[in-house]
């Protein structure tokens, strides 16, 4: 299935349909069988998953979150996870997680809604929220897809997640997406030049770090978030561009960025990078992710607040 709707979000309606339509059609006919994943579809799906997770966590802190909205987002997350399970992406991810401490088959959305039960009983049961498999997602993603450079959409970079900081199991569900912020922040500082290239390069770093033997870092329990994020400063040479993929994205309409500016209504910069997205999303709530240190120190507090909020 490559639904028209999901495709168009990244470009003008007509433009990409042609190049990807065939693959999409082929995929749509066999829902049950593992799909031939187009990279772009996987990336888009991944970014949608990430976006949804952020939304679930950045609930309004003072007022009770809108239950309808939360349920709809959680259902979207479930859908994506189900699809990823069907096409095998999820399995890859869970295998990668095997070494980590978290059970892989627990659906994230379950986690969120689980907390809507009495937090007291949850605490009683000694239940600590299982960390969301952000690590696995990233690693799984990398093993599946080739990261593209060049005229790459924002969403590509958004989907590369930095690993969960292992030292905070109770906050780890939240730590995942929030871990994205600091990762991108540092990248932004390090990089210069065009946003896309930077993000592209840095996302390479994020991923290749994991691949290149720093994978151990991801699993070390004692590793703090800072230490983990710090490793991403080391730049690695960018892999040669895949001409086929480049061609795929060559006609991507950059007006998408402008559309987003209009739509979100709160972007000051003309282009929306992953950092901007996080910022824009967090501006919904009273807290702003201004720095990685603030982020990390707030995680426990955030977790506490989350417990209270979904404790209804």
């Amino acid at each position, binding site marked *: 299935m490559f639904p028209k709707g*999901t495709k168009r979000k990244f470009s003008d309606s007509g433009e990409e349909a042609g190049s990807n339509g065939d693959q999409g059609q082929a995929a749509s006919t066999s829902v049950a069988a593992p799909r031939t994943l187009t990279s772009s579809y996987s990336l888009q799906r991944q970014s949608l998953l990430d976006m949804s997770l952020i939304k679930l966590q950045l609930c309004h802190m003072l007022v009770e979150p809108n*239950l309808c909205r939360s349920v709809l987002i959680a*259902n979207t997350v479930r859908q994506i996870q189900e699809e990823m399970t069907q096409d095998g992406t999820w399995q890859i991810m869970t295998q990668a997680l095997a070494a980590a401490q978290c059970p892989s088959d627990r659906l994230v959305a379950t986690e969120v809604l689980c907390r809507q039960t009495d937090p007291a009983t949850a605490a009683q049961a000694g239940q600590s929220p299982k960390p969301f498999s952000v690590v696995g997602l990233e690693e799984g993603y990398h093993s599946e897809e080739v990261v593209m450079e060049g005229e790459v959409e924002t969403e590509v970079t958004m989907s590369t997640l930095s690993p969960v900081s292992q030292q905070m199991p109770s906050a780890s569900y939240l730590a995942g997406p929030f871990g994205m912020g600091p990762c991108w922040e540092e990248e932004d500082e390090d990089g210069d030049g065009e946003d896309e290239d930077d993000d592209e390069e840095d996302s390479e770093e994020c991923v290749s770090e994991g691949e290149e033997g720093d994978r151990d870092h991801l699993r070390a329990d004692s590793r703090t978030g800072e230490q983990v994020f710090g490793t991403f400063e080391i730049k690695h040479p960018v892999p040669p561009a895949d001409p086929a993929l480049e061609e795929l994205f060559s006609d991507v309409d950059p007006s998408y960025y402008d559309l987003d500016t209009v739509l979100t209504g709160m972007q000051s910069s003309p282009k929306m990078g992953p950092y901007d997205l996080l910022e824009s999303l967090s501006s919904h709530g009273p807290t702003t992710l201004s720095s990685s240190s603030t982020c990390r120190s707030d995680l426990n507090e955030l977790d506490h607040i989350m417990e209270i909020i979904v404790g209804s």
Partner: protein
Amino acid sequence: HLLPGPGGDMQWCFSQVKGAIDDDVAEADIISTVEFNQTGELLATGDKGGRNKNQPQFRSEYNVYSTFQSHEPEFDYLKSLEIEEKINKIRWLPQKNAAHFLLSTNDKTIKLWKISERDKRPDGYNLKEDDGRYKDPNSITSLRVPVLIPMDLMVEASPRRVFANAHTYHINSISVNSDNETYLSADDLRINLWHLEITDRSFNIVDIKPANMEDLTEVITAAEFHPLQCNTFVYSSSKGTIRLCDMRNAALCDKHSKLFEEPEDPSNRSFFSEIISSISDVKFSHNGRYMMTRDYLSVKIWDLNMETRPVETYQVHEYLRSKLCSLYENDCIFDKFECCWNGDDSVVMTGSYNNFFRMFDRGQHRDVTLEASRENSKPLQVLKPRKVCAGGKRKKDEISVDSLDFNKKILHTAWHPQDNIIAVATTNNLYIFQDKVN
């Protein structure tokens, strides 16, 4: 093109606008609900600040009649959360005497308000002075009958009932029964039935809360009593279904009598399908034969006798279908638009973005897009139909999708029960338009 009506084409013109002119919108002034009473004589608006404004019609104009603070912000100490004072819904009760009654609700508490006029006061008490002090009995030499003398019109709003502590989740709907004795209130997971006279208890008639909240995948989004059959009500869900329930069947109406659901169009399937199918409003037609539902992209009219699909579907802003991901990102996809019928159920209306609102004439199969803006606010200025260009070459006077302002949304609209007068709420302004013929 114009929307034809009885006696020629309907031309909507500007009548009034209420609210601050500047763009700096105070949070408290955001209009959260608009409702005409049964005669159209009064128009009520609720806002985020918990205030309720009533405006009577006088010579085709609505002027503020009374403003009162319906709800105050509260704090739930158990959950350490604020309870907003924002008024979610207002429903007028049918008028029985000189006073007007309305139900006003925030997320947790429903209040019955009595709005009455006082334009006379008693004068000439025997035992009391004008200022209320008691007279010295010895000074009273004669007996007189007190009389009512005119005074400046005073409108009083007094809370008569407070229906509290019956909802764990956020109330999204209230609906007065045709029996004029009971009403329902619906939150995300439950619907309660109240008697207007009794505040200390309510009957739970629908409960969709799963035993394990982990299994929660669907919530109630709106509910309404049938306008004529006092035993019938409907409620809509976030999965795009509408359930019609008959209270005579069982005390707990978890089992629906009818389930209205349109099968999904497989060619339009995406990760956003469920979200855009979520119904944000459900309204019975005045004659009780149809009901209208609003989901993110369309308005559907259902015949109560046919559960399998709607009899009519109107696209409100189909050009947004290709932008769903962005709209998901900025949360606009969760906006809850309302919809309304005109007096004779021939036209339906709903809001959109960029301060546009849409009308669909069911009989004539025509629709029009109009805009509520300060620029088009000269007295009796006729509203020019607007057009959104979905793609390709943009014609003159058309607006391209990318230029739409998604912060300017019209969520609440109301149509006068008898005349062609409509009230349209932008973020913090209330526009009143009327048909030129009027």
